[in-house]
């Protein structure tokens, strides 16, 4: 009998877990229908396979194998001194900290004072948040199977609501720790971020495994930028080699908004970033930038979408990748320009360096343009280190390893230089130095 249970697929396990979850749910809530619809979508579609165009270069098979525990209701204690390094502790920040998917009040610093930085669980349960939940929850997220799976199980995550004209004075950190106390763990954080008219916010998101047990995270973040809002979002992916993640981020931009997402992908086993921007009003500005540095058998897949729906908008994409050993990178950047989105200026750049012969990069720009008066450009390069540049540096007495490191910095610099939080920039510099195993004795 036990044997039979073990043979159950992860999909079946999730479906039966949902039935158990339903018993705890708010039956009268409109959310209940959303969940039921979502689980149906997941049941129908299942996990994506390589047969789907968007998943051609990334297979989830290996990360779906472990016998993940789907719930962890026990509150785990972790000591600040052990995890302090994962916080941007050099400056004051708001903090939303989750341990194995459960909110940790001890490590967090929330607020309801002129803005809400709090929990999805309380937003879902308290009536005062009901109008916001009803207006925004699951309104920009796509109905693909992984997002639907997250929606069905929505329980905890960050709930951030910035009222109109509020300039948040310090960054907000969202940190998801996993302790690995369960043998293998499946986590599904769900974040909702609503940035009011003319409000400004900076957010840093990080996922960190604290053990070598396997973790799979299927995260969904919805961000709504009301007109003239400014959102600056940083994703730091520097997790353990046993941690895998599927990140689904959806950004809805009203007119005159600026939204920027930087993704620093240095760690983890398998990471899939589904980053989607929807420009719904005129004069939107979207920035998607990333630095990916991989080694070993790491696999990182950036799947971006910029959907130009309204006219006179801009988008800027700049992804830099450095791939060592037998690591695999994927960049699949899709730009859709609708018929009405005249005067769109869409730019996409993806540059890759293969450090070793066994490393792989699959790059696929996709442009679907239905308007006639637009400026769209994309450039993709795959190369090795510039031998002439290496010789130049070495001829000045700088060793091969350090010279390569300098060239990596130089290569990644166009992304790094647009990080607007100085302390974060220093941190990322250090992460890069660690990752490439060289300290250059200066910050860029």
């Amino acid at each position, binding site marked *: 009998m036990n044997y039979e249970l073990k043979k159950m697929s992860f999909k079946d396990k999730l479906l039966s877990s949902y039935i158990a979850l339903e018993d705890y749910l708010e039956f009268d809530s409109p959310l209940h229908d959303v969940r039921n619809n979502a689980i149906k979508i997941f049941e129908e579609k299942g996990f994506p396979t390589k047969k789907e165009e968007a998943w051609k270069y990334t297979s989830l098979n290996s990360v779906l194998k472990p016998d993940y525990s789907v719930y962890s209701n026990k509150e785990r204690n972790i000591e600040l001194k052990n995890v302090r390094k994962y916080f941007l502790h050099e400056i004051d920040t708001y903090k939303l900290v989750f341990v194995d998917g459960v909110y940790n009040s001890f490590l967090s610093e929330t607020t309801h004072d002129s803005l809400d930085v709090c929990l999805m669980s309380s937003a879902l349960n308290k009536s005062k948040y009901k109008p916001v939940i009803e207006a925004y929850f699951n309104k920009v997220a796509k109905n693909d199977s992984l997002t639907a799976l997250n929606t069905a199980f929505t329980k905890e995550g960050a709930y951030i609501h910035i009222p109109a004209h509020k300039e948040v004075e310090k960054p907000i950190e969202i940190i998801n720790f996993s302790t690995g106390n369960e043998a293998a763990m499946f986590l599904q954080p769900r974040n909702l971020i609503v940035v009011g008219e003319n409000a400004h916010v900076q957010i840093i998101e990080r996922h960190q495994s604290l053990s070598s047990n396997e973790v799979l995270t299927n995260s969904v973040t919805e961000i709504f930028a009301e007109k003239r809002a400014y959102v600056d979002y940083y994703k730091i992916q520097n997790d353990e080699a046993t941690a895998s993640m599927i990140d689904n981020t959806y950004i809805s931009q009203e007119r005159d908004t600026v939204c920027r997402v930087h993704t620093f992908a240095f760690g983890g086993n398998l990471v899939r970033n589904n980053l989607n921007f929807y420009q719904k009003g005129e004069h939107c500005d979207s920035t998607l930038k990333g630095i990916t540095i991989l080694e070993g058998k790491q696999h990182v897949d950036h799947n971006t979408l910029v959907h130009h729906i309204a006219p006179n908008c801009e988008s800027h994409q700049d992804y830099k990748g450095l791939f060592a050993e037998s690591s695999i990178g994927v960049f699949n950047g899709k730009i859709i320009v609708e018929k009405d989105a005249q005067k769109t200026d869409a730019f996409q750049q993806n540059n890759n360096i293969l450090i070793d012969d066994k490393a792989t990069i699959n790059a696929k720009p996709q442009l679907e343009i239905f308007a006639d008066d637009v400026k769209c450009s994309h450039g993709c390069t795959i190369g090795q280190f510039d031998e*002439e540049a290496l010789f130049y540096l*070495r001829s000045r007495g700088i060793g091969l390893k350090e010279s390569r490191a300098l*060239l990596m910095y130089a290569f990644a610099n166009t992304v790094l230089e647009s990080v607007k939080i100085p302390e974060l920039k220093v941190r990322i510099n250090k992460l890069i130095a660690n990752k490439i195993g060289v300290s250059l004795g200066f910050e860029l």
Partner: protein
Amino acid sequence: MLKIKDLYAGLEGKDILQGINLEVKAGEVHAIMGPNGSGKSTLASVVAGKEEYEVNRGYITFENQDISELDPEERAHKGIFLSFQYPVEIPGVSVTNFIKTAINETRKAKGKEDMPASEMLKMIKEKADMLEIDRKFLSRSLNEGFSGGEKKRNEIFQMAMLEPKLAILDETDSGLDIDALKIVANGVNRLKSKDNAVVVITHYQRLLDYIVPDFVHVLMNGKIVKSGTKELAYELEEKGYDWIKEELV
């Protein structure tokens, strides 16, 4: 200081240099002239250790040690400096940070501590002033968006900072107007001493009015076909290279 003996070197099995013999002693200035494609830059790169070139015969010694098998950085640590004809742009790394890294890497290779920051700063200021380099220039990304003249001046600045025993200046005069040329030449002359040596590679005699050579060599088809004193440079300027070809026949 530098001895090149019967050197054959080139790319993919094809020798560009075909039996070079050259000796440069401490305190000397040598000029190597020659038409395009004669192998001047190849010679400079081979001495500095560019890996894509294969040395097929002969050897290069520096201070009586065979350096043919050494990495470029090891040659730099020994005191060989090459001023590039086309310096490479390195975005995101400032001139100052670059030179600091180069100096401290060289010190590290010699088992020395990093140069104290105050000393480094003083030296940077002194050398920048000597070459009339604006302080703002030093915080710009290395060679990125530099004019031809700025790139060359920056090469000489690096030379001034690294204080090499042997400096090879590859077409340092190209891209320089007369004022910049004077500043650069003046910088090189001030760095000159009885303990170091300079090899100037150039197409034109112009630079040699300011950096006066003790010896002039003519390189043609990968061989030094004629050597002489600075008067040879004037003769070449006046008559071109054809008369040497005729002489050789």
